[in-house]
């Protein structure tokens, strides 16, 4: 059997400058900090980060923003991290951050489409707004919809509560967020898990993300400390 257990530094070793990375979580609840920290140490630059939000300074994706590693951020909300606005408006070219805002439901569904073989989907969200600019509008049954396209990435950072050595993963509380869709929508998927257990230890009824999606498992992820 393939040994997927890695240290955090080993797991991110293949990530190069300019990579695209999906990061699970919502306001950093459900974000694998252990993997973010390893990426900060590796200090790769010009990353495209796809995440619901920008976390907060010092938490989640916020650490990558602070360290100037993010060139493009695709997110639904960045308002709780003031550093994003500062970097969007800076005149210093190497610090400049491009932020592409996507409605949260559309972002989730684009990632789901990316992982499930769909060529896109039709949503009423954003019709008549600036979100519709440059997009195809289709009228179905008398109602307008936007054609939204699938989203994939080179890597995904998933935060597991309990993960077995195959990669089967459970999520506690509201840590689930974007994690299950992202696990299917990236070429290389790394789970930062709070607890790593033997295969068979998780009741199949409770597995949310199958180990087939997972390429690397890093133990030692901790719960968000208040």
């Amino acid at each position, binding site marked *: 059997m393939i040994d997927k257990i890695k240290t955090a530094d080993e797991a991110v070793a293949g990530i190069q400058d300019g990579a695209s990375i999906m990061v699970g979580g919502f306001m950093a609840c459900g974000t694998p900090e252990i993997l973010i920290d390893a990426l900060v140490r590796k200090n790769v630059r010009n990353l495209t980060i796809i995440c619901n939000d920008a976390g907060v300074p010092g938490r989640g994706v916020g650490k990558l923003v602070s360290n100037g590693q993010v060139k493009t951020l695709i997110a*639904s909300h960045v308002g709780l991290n003031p550093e994003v606005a500062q970097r969007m408006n800076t005149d210093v070219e190497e610090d400049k951050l491009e932020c592409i805002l996507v409605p*949260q*439901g559309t972002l*989730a569904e684009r990632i789901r489409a990316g992982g499930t073989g769909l060529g896109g989907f039709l949503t009423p969200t954003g019709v008549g707004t600036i979100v519709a600019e440059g997009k195809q509008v289709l009228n179905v049954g008398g109602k307008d919809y936007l054609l939204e396209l699938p989203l994939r990435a080179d890597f995904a950072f998933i935060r597991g509560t309990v993960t077995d050595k195959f990669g089967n993963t459970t999520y506690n509380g509201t840590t*689930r*967020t974007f994690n*299950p869709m992202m696990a299917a929508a990236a070429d290389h998927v790394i789970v930062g898990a709070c607890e790593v257990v033997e295969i068979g230890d998780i009741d199949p009824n409770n597995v*949310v993300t199958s180990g087939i999606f997972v390429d690397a498992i890093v133990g030692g992820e901790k719960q968000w400390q208040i």
Partner: protein
Amino acid sequence: MADLKEIIARRVARELKDGDVVNLGIGLPTMVANHLPEGVHIVLQSENGIMGMGSAAEPGKEDVDIINAGAQYVTVNPGAMYFDSATSFGIIRGGHVDATVLGALEVDQLGNLANWIVPGKMVPGMGGAMDLVVGAKKVIVAMLHTQKGKHKILDSCTLPYTAINVVDMIVTEMGVMEVTPEGIVLTELNEDYTVEQVQEATQCKLIISPSLKKMEY
């Protein structure tokens, strides 16, 4: 006089029916849950993945894995469920949320809503708002009537839309308004104000309901 935001939250709470599935926005809308009439039990949906959200977690008793969409620690009620974000917005767009209550920067007489961006000044992002107002069966805007005297209920929005033609009801400290094909109808008046004062605080021409009632809260 009671706190203005509390007046608004109290009136919105009366709009909700027993068994309703409700998504409350951050800030004033969150206060609505504290003022439900006796016997009215609603199911709170939180777009980050909860059906059956409870109250804020007591200090010292927080579960760090359970937050609401405003990143505050919360509890869940018996019978609750967690889900992923795609499922959450499937519930929202699918019309399974009976009402959403949220604030606004601007609303206009066509029911257009602007509440997510002030170009060049504030670009927080739309979060889940665009999906919520398009998907929820009833969209209630809960806000102070003006922004320090500046009109917020307009002939037409000047800020980029969150969505077009979606607002059903506006509740402010001055009264209750319904958005109709004919325009915005003032249906209830807070007796601390006159109809003339409400009109003065509103840019678009209000239609005064022939059965205008006292706003109860």
